């Protein structure tokens, strides 16, 4: 069975036309193996984890912890906290590490390229703790201003940077950012939500202190993600959410906590989602992700040029390591209208500010239309998309 054939949703029609799903930077579709794994769990093994000794509980625990083991293996990480997604992972760093380690007068370096999920938690912490926030600007070439970054590092305690922009598809020079940050004595958090779907990252070699990402952008279920933490940094984090599963003992006088990742996973976790994610991670080993990425960036680059040729402003550069994301605007056709016209022919794209308002403010716009490609998208779909855009421009511009 071909890769694309493993996604049942891609067989459906939308408004009478075959679905062409180009909203992958928002979420990806799920292959049958992921749907089956989750269905099998609920059909055969549903139980709570880490507690009971009965057979189902053992199977559920095994399934849940297999996800952590798979993540450790895939990303070469020794500390993997399972969260509800990238947003919760970043908030966890703000609460569990930030509150324990940052105080008035400390500085956090952010960039204008960040998703709101890597801005708002820091603004909340800054308000609570009197921490200074410094924003690295984005240049007219859609890259971070690295001179400004180096300047901002002076005295910084933490650098929070997006691996790959969800609007521009630009992959940041993370190796330089991590090296310079560590030289300056700052920890580094990488928001890799858009990075991990396109590249396998060796977390230990990468050298970041925290890395956050979500399952649903890499063919896994929604509602689950992970925070990878460098081991010595892990030891400086304090529990954030209290409850079941994260404790060692509880008395009426007080509690002691687990020492492993469970310390940060209070309450019943996302068991079915973890099992689905494991299936997705295993499925992603069935093809060459690097080769797929090369194919997709070639498609994105071609689409970007075709859109420029019909008068679109394209935001992004589409270099080899960038994600296959094409953000664009037409000078006279409203982006929301464009998205509705495309939807009428089965094309799913995203419009709006993409939860990155500071970036769009820097670019002087309020939103874009965004087409984002993933492993099941074909060259033929891209050609159909370009043809549809040409027709819309001809008729409505």
């Amino acid at each position: 069975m071909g890769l694309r054939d493993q996604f049942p949703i891609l067989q459906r029609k939308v408004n009478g036309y075959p679905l062409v799903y180009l909203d992958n930077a928002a979420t990806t579709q799920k292959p049958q193996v992921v749907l089956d794994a989750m269905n099998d769990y609920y059909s055969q093994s549903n139980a709570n984890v880490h507690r009971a000794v009965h057979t189902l509980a053992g199977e559920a625990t095994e399934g849940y912890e297999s996800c952590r083991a798979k993540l450790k293996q895939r990303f070469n990480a020794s500390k993997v906290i399972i969260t509800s997604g990238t947003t919760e992972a970043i908030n966890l760093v703000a609460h569990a590490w930030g509150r324990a380690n940052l105080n008035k007068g400390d500085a956090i370096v952010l960039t204008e390229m960040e998703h709101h999920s890597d801005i708002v938690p820091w603004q909340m912490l800054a308000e609570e703790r009197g921490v200074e926030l410094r924003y690295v600007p984005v240049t007219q070439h859609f890259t971070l201003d690295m001179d400004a970054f180096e300047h901002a590092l002076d005295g910084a305690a933490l650098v929070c940077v997006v691996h790959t922009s969800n609007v521009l598809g630009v992959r940041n020079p993370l190796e330089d950012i991590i090296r310079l940050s560590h030289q300056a004595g700052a920890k580094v958090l990488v928001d890799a939500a858009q990075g991990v779907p396109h590249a396998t990252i060796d977390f230990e070699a990468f050298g970041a202190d925290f890395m956050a990402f979500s399952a649903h952008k890499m063919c896994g279920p929604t509602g689950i993600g992970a925070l990878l933490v460098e081991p010595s940094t892990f030891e400086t984090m304090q529990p954030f959410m209290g409850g079941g599963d994260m404790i060692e003992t509880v008395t009426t006088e007080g509690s002691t906590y687990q020492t492993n990742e469970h310390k940060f996973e209070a309450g019943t976790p996302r068991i079915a989602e973890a099992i689905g994610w494991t299936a997705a991670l295993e499925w992603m080993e069935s093809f060459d992700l690097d080769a797929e990425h090369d194919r997709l960036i070639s498609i994105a680059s071609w689409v970007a040029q075709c859109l420029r040729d019909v008068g679109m402003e394209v935001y992004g550069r589409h270099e080899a390591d960038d994600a296959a994301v094409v953000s664009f605007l037409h000078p006279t056709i409203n982006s929301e209208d464009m998205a509705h016209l495309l939807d009428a022919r089965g094309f799913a794209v995203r419009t709006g500010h993409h939860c990155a308002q500071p970036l769009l403010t820097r670019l002087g716009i309020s939103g874009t239309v965004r087409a984002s490609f993933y492993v099941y998208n074909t060259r033929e779909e891209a050609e159909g998309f370009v043809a549809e855009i040409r027709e819309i421009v001809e008729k409505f511009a």
Partner: protein
Amino acid sequence: MTYPEALQELVEEFQAVDDKRERLEMLFELADEVIELPASHWDEQTRVRGCQSEAHVSVVMEDGRIQFLSAADARMVQGLMGILTIALDGLTPAQAVLISPAFAEEMGLLNTLTPSRSNGFRNMYDKVMNEIRQSMEG
């Protein structure tokens, strides 16, 4: 769902068209039906909040009847404003608040009426109806 006569006719007209692209084109033409709220009158009071596009509305009462002024930079949103303009024309506030937003779904224009960041129409409809209700209380 039944609607005031002019709106009912529009609903049926749209329902007779199978192709969504054609329905959108019909909708875009209805954008010209709005009583335009000039940009010079746009402010935070008129802004439809939570709308992806720039959209402004104002409800004015004249002799107990509604006058609905509006404008948007998306033809889609302004087209829906055009439909609402036709629907509200000459109605009293008590008649107007009975109009359900379901017409946008029944006309095959929107997939959802759930209020959200991506649903400019619903945000616009709610704001207009709230202003009409407030005019009744006032």
